[in-house]
């Protein structure tokens, strides 16, 4: 058992009482079967000797009791183990959330993108079955073994020994065999499965290209080849899992035969009452029910181990250290100043090398440039999502490093380039930014974002649900709700990354005007590659490859006939 798995158990440990209870009921379920079969065997063996009916009475009561008990215990076991599954799920989710929240996004490596993070959520959900599929089966089997030992030892130590041997063979030997036999296949299967998925994505999304380049046939060949390989491995795997099932059955038969073989002489020489011969045989047969889920448990153990190691690999990253102070620095004004800031994302090229920048208070500042030149990184640094490597950033007279991310969130409102709307109503999505906002304030913010009128046309108005990822709305509508969400907080600093992406001419103009008005009382920073409507900006910075190459007002930059001028002309050339 790996270290990771033990850690998972530790997290799940909160529910050990419940798990114990479920295992005991699981054990009692199988125990009842054993009881039923042994008592039944006893009744008929005893009856064969034609005693008085009174001697069978206890057995008959026992048979009825076990018959009903099995059903009841089964019910209890299923009920409790589902309860546990749900509790574990909640526990793992909260634990996972708590673990990655402080790491997000700078410490999450490649998982900082939502798509990849989604994949690891599957791993978290995998762990919910850890009790039912991994912990319970061996535990129940162990309890059944103990019961069998107690029962059989009362007849003869030899029978108990036979049971131990066959339980070990079927419960440990067979799962180990299946583990080692399928170990390599499993890894290859995973690889081939992802290759299959790649090919399917290639076909569906690259369909036009495949057609245009006449690649249909060669694609089909490659696909068939991969699929054939995939399925030949799957067949191999199925052979092994089929073999484990057959093996457990065979071991059961052999256990019965061995018991017979060693008990028959005892019956002959009078050491064992012949009545019990069938009792022992049927008891042995019934007890093997406990061993059937074990090979599957091993497979799940492996799977859970992989999930656990992926999760821990992520959560074990050192947490970034932030000031522990409850005190929130109070800057004398809300301008933002970067003093020779250097930064690079780990494992990639330098974004900023000694960048200097001043974003004045109560003005509209714009940072413009082509995509991929490092504009958006500025947002990541100011929000403290990432920590800069060198240099200083100030808000007013206070160093940014004296703020915690939560403290920064209080004074800075951001509309990120990729907005996320929760699967809630429009009102709840806007209020998300400011739980204390009144309805009135929400409507005002929506008007500023030019979405209020649109919302009123919806059947449920502000209570309309936006759907998963807000997909019931168009891109432009989502963008405007994200804007309203930032406006409703009325924080002193507003940073908007591509605020007018997905917006039409009309909305773009209105919102730019509103932003301009807001900038008279707030620090407003717009990051954009669209240059029209910037003529009212207080100052425009042109960024190229992480450097400010030009700055000034629109008029000044137009006169310079440099980078900005060329960019704007290219943009104007774009008509439809």
């Amino acid at each position, binding site marked *: 058992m790996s270290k990771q798995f033990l850690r998972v158990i530790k997290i799940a440990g909160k529910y050990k009482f419940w798990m114990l209870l479920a295992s005991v009921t699981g054990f009692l379920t199988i125990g*009842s079967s054993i009881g*039923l079969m042994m008592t*039944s065997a006893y*009744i008929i*063996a005893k009856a*064969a000797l034609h005693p008085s009916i009174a001697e069978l009475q206890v057995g008959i009561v026992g048979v009825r009791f076990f018959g*009903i008990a099995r*059903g*009841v215990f*089964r*019910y209890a076991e*299923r*009920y409790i183990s*589902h*309860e546990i599954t*749900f509790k574990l*799920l*909640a526990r793992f989710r*909260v634990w996972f*959330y708590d673990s990655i929240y402080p790491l997000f*996004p700078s410490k999450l490596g490649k998982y900082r993108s*939502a798509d990849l*993070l*989604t994949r690891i*959520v599957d791993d978290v959900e995998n762990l919910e079955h850890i009790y039912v599929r991994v912990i319970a089966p061996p535990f129940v089997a162990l309890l059944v073994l103990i019961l069998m030992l107690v029962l059989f030892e009362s007849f003869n130590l030899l029978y108990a020994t036979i049971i131990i041997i066959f339980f070990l063979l079927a419960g440990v030997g067979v799962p180990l065999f299946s583990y080692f036999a399928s170990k390599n296949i499993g890894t290859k299967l995973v690889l081939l499965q992802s290759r*299959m998925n790649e090919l*399917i994505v*290639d076909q*569906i999304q*690259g369909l*036009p*290209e495949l*057609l245009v*380049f*006449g690649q*249909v046939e060669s694609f089909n060949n490659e696909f068939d080849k991969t699929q054939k390989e995939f399925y030949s491995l799957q067949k191999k795997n*199925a052979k092994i899992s089929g073999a484990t099932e057959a093996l457990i059955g065979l071991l059961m038969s052999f256990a019965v035969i061995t018991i017979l073989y060693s008990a*028959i002489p005892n*019956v*002959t020489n009078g050491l064992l009452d012949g*009545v019990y*011969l*069938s009792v022992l045989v*049927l008891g042995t*047969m019934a007890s093997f029910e406990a061993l059937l889920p074990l090979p599957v448990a091993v497979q799940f153990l492996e799977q859970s181990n992989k999930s656990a190691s992926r999760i821990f690999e992520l959560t074990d990253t050192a947490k970034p250290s932030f000031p522990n102070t409850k005190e929130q620095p109070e800057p004398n004004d809300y301008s933002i100043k970067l003093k020779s800031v250097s930064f690079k994302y780990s494992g*990639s090229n330098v974004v900023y090398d000694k960048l200097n920048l001043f974003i004045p208070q109560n003005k509209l500042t714009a940072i413009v*440039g*082509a*995509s991929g030149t490092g504009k958006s990184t500025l947002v990541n640094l100011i929000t403290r999502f990432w920590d800069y490597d060198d240099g200083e950033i100030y808000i007013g007279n206070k160093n940014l490093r004296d703020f915690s991310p939560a403290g920064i969130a209080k004074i800075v*409102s*951001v509309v*990120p380039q990729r907005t996320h709307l*929760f699967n809630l109503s429009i009102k709840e999505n806007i209020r998300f930014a400011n739980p204390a906002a009144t309805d009135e304030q929400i409507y005002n913010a929506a008007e500023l974002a030019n979405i209020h009128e649109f919302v009123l046309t919806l059947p449920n108005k502000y209570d309309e649900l936006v759907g998963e990822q807000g997909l019931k709305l168009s891109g432009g509508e989502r963008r405007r709700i994200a804007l309203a969400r930032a406006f409703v907080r009325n924080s002193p600093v507003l940073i908007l990354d591509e605020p007018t992406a997905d917006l039409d001419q009309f909305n773009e103009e209105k919102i730019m005007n509103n932003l301009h008005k807001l900038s008279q009382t707030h620090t407003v920073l717009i990051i954009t*590659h669209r240059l029209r409507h910037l*003529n009212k900006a207080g100052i425009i910075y042109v960024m190229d490859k992480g450097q400010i190459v030009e700055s000034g007002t629109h008029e000044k930059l137009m006169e310079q006939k440099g*980078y900005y001028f060329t*960019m704007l002309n290219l943009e104007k050339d*774009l*008509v*439809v």
Partner: protein
Amino acid sequence: MHVDKRLIKLAHNYRLTASISILSDLFAAFLTIAQAFYLSMIIDSVFLRSKSLNDVSNLIFILILVSVLKSLFIWLGQNSANKLAVNIKSNLRQKLTRHIFKLGPSYTKGEKSGEITNTVFNGIEKLEAYFSQFLPQLFLSALIPLLILIIVFPVDLLTGVVFLVTAPLIPVFMILIGKIAESMNRKQWKILNLMSGYFLDVIQGLATIKLFGRQRDIRKKIELVSDSFRISTMKVLRIAFLSALVLEILSTISIAIVAVEIGLRLLHGNLEFRQALFILILAPEFYLPLRQLGARYHAGMEGVSAAESIFKILKEPVKISSGKNTFNPGLAKNIKVEFQNVSFSYNNTKEAVKNLSFTLNPGTVTALVGKSGSGKTTTANLLLKFIENSTGKIIVNGMDLKTLSRNDWLKFVTWIPQNPYLFHESIKYNLQLAKPGATEEEIIDAARKADIHNFINSLAYGYETIVGERGARLSGGQAQRIALARAFLKNSPLIILDEPTANLDPQTELRLLRNIEMLTKNKTVLMIAHRLNTIKKADSILVYSNGEIVESGNYNELIELNGYFTKLIKSYSGEDE
């Protein structure tokens, strides 16, 4: 019961494998009966007839043989069931991918693409359990009890009657409770999905949560949501589990009844011990297949619902006629295209393009101009044979496009879309696609012309870099330049082009535009144009509005007309210069 006729039909093609699987299981069942027979013989001999180990050693030997054989048949049965499932899956997936090719890009694009991808892999894999577990079990749960009945009836009539009476109760109860449980199950799944959905929403919205400092509230909500879902789900399950309870009790009580019944008759000397023991050992085996069916019922249901989406795709009619004629551009290798009153609608409702009539002449650039959704892309798709016109004709060099084989026609067409797709292969593969067998020099030359060679060279593995792996996710602008390089490699007489608009830095952008001009020289070009400069240079302009060509001519003619085109251009270029 969930016996989908279409799925059974699939299994029908593999009758042999399916029969082997079921026959093996039947043999195994038969051997189980034999096991019970010999076991009861042995025990009887020792217990009541005072036989020694030596006397029964022959029987024990047979028992060993029977046990080994039984395990072998179980193994064989499982293997054949799996083989059946694998054959069906692989065949069905092949059919599915072939059919998707026939349906073409207009079927797979957009929001549906995720769903289709999921169906082609996961949907089909979900059939595994249906064919390897549920379906055989379905047969066995009818056949094995029948087999046991046939054997038990002559041995002991009364037990036979008990079996016969109780056995149908199990499926009856299963169906009865199953109906209630099914709707509850469905509710439960929905709830579960909602809960997972909420958590996923939170994880995807981490940035937003952090930006607005709502960490603690959300944590509380995760707990709350999980808790309230657990409570409501358990309420549902409390009842759903009753089905399991009833099934268990029914079969165990039946065993208990049989035990008592045969015990009492033994007592009165109406039955022999050997027979009684034989029946007792068989009793659990009689109910086992039916109980297992209950356990595999869910797998069956999943398979059926997966089949639903598979057959939905397969049922989708192919709307493109499979022309057989080959296209011959003639010696000059020029292509002339005529659209004659062409109309098309995507789903028989509103027409996406109406009455298109125009000519594309060799050596000229025709620009399509109009708002998004006005029919420009549909026009390009028609010419690419991705879709087929419902009325009118498209004539290329005198031949009706409908009669041409798509594969053959597209050999002469270059297509540069707004969002070109790059395959999960090396960059070299992605380029070579355009000209199988292209030499290294040709590839590098094309990449140079498309202004992407330097970028490719800067990657750690150069042209061998696998797209999509470790940072080799190309930006939109880079993908467009790869597409351009492909176009240079293919060098075909007809070019269909959606003018790229990625926001690159001005120099790169200007170079990209120049490169396109170089490419399109002396070709027949259909260009969805976005730039005033391009439009000005075009030999002919088709102005689209709501699927119709409302104006046409060159730039000066259209300006002179002072109609829709002029309005369109003014509304976009914003302030005057």
